[in-house]
């Protein structure tokens, strides 16, 4: 087998998280588990031009994101690394087709972010205040603008935080190693508890 499609068998994915309810936490902060939503990453000097050829607009500088009209979040994590994330579980076919289209393209290499990372969406007015308890980077409204990405440590685990507006609502996507995602879910739940 020379090419295995990492986006395949979407219906067989199972979350390892014991989250109780898919939504949390209180009236001021909610958290949603997007771990099973499709996503794909690419790294390489040819990725930016490859994505543009596929009709996807990409941020011009690292640590910025854009969201397509169809609801795919495009993260630029470095000059040569991009992740594309389905935000409403409707873009699986698009992401699968994109992954297949990358086959054989020069200087485009796939990344295994579907199975390596957990993904949460955290929303609510007090979310920046909650993150101030668990994250050293200032994510407050005035400093951390919409479309920004912070790659840093959250509750002692490495995480990517991407702030973006999805369906007219501002939210923070949190991606971190799948092995630590239960801890991170619990830590964010715990940090959010006081903002009721």
């Amino acid at each position, binding site marked *: 087998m020379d090419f295995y499609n990492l986006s395949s068998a979407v219906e067989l994915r199972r979350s390892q998280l014991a989250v109780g309810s898919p939504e949390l936490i209180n009236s001021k902060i909610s958290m949603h588990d997007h771990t099973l939503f499709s996503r794909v990453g690419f790294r390489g000097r040819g990725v930016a031009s490859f994505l543009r050829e596929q009709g996807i607009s990409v941020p011009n500088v*690292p*640590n910025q994101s854009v969201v397509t009209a169809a609801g795919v979040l495009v993260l630029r*994590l*470095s000059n040569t690394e991009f992740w594309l994330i389905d935000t409403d579980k409707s873009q699986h076919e698009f992401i699968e087709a994109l992954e297949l289209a990358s086959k054989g393209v020069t200087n485009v290499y796939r990344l295994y972010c579907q199975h390596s990372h957990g993904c949460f969406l955290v929303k609510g007015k007090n979310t920046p205040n909650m993150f101030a308890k668990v994250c*050293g*980077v200032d994510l407050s409204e005035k400093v951390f603008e919409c479309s920004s990405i*912070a*790659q*840093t*440590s959250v509750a002692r685990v*490495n*995480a*990517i935080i991407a702030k973006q507006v999805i369906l007219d609502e501002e939210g923070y996507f949190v991606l971190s190693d799948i092995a630590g995602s239960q801890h991170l879910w619990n830590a964010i739940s715990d940090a959010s508890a006081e903002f009721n």
Partner: protein
Amino acid sequence: MKIMNCPLNGPRNISEFVYGGEVKPMPDMVNCSDKEWAEYVFYYDNTIRIVQEWWFHSPSGYWFIAERHTASDEILKTYDPSEIFKERVDFEMKAKPAQEVVS
């Protein structure tokens, strides 16, 4: 708490970084002696001066170069490796002819 400026991500807590050794010119890996290679991989001068070092920002998987004073531990400058390394280095080795195992 120490803060280091990551060229990609900005100022970050020092606990997010991993040390990766001194930046040194690599000897010809095919023709150099074992001693030369060992000196390149393992040995450092350990003198008081400003050293160029590899550092890794773990949350973003990003390698960069920092200039640090070995006595004061002050980090003077950090920058992307592309400022020094302009060309890709390949490690292709010529395959050696297989040797027969004599039992």
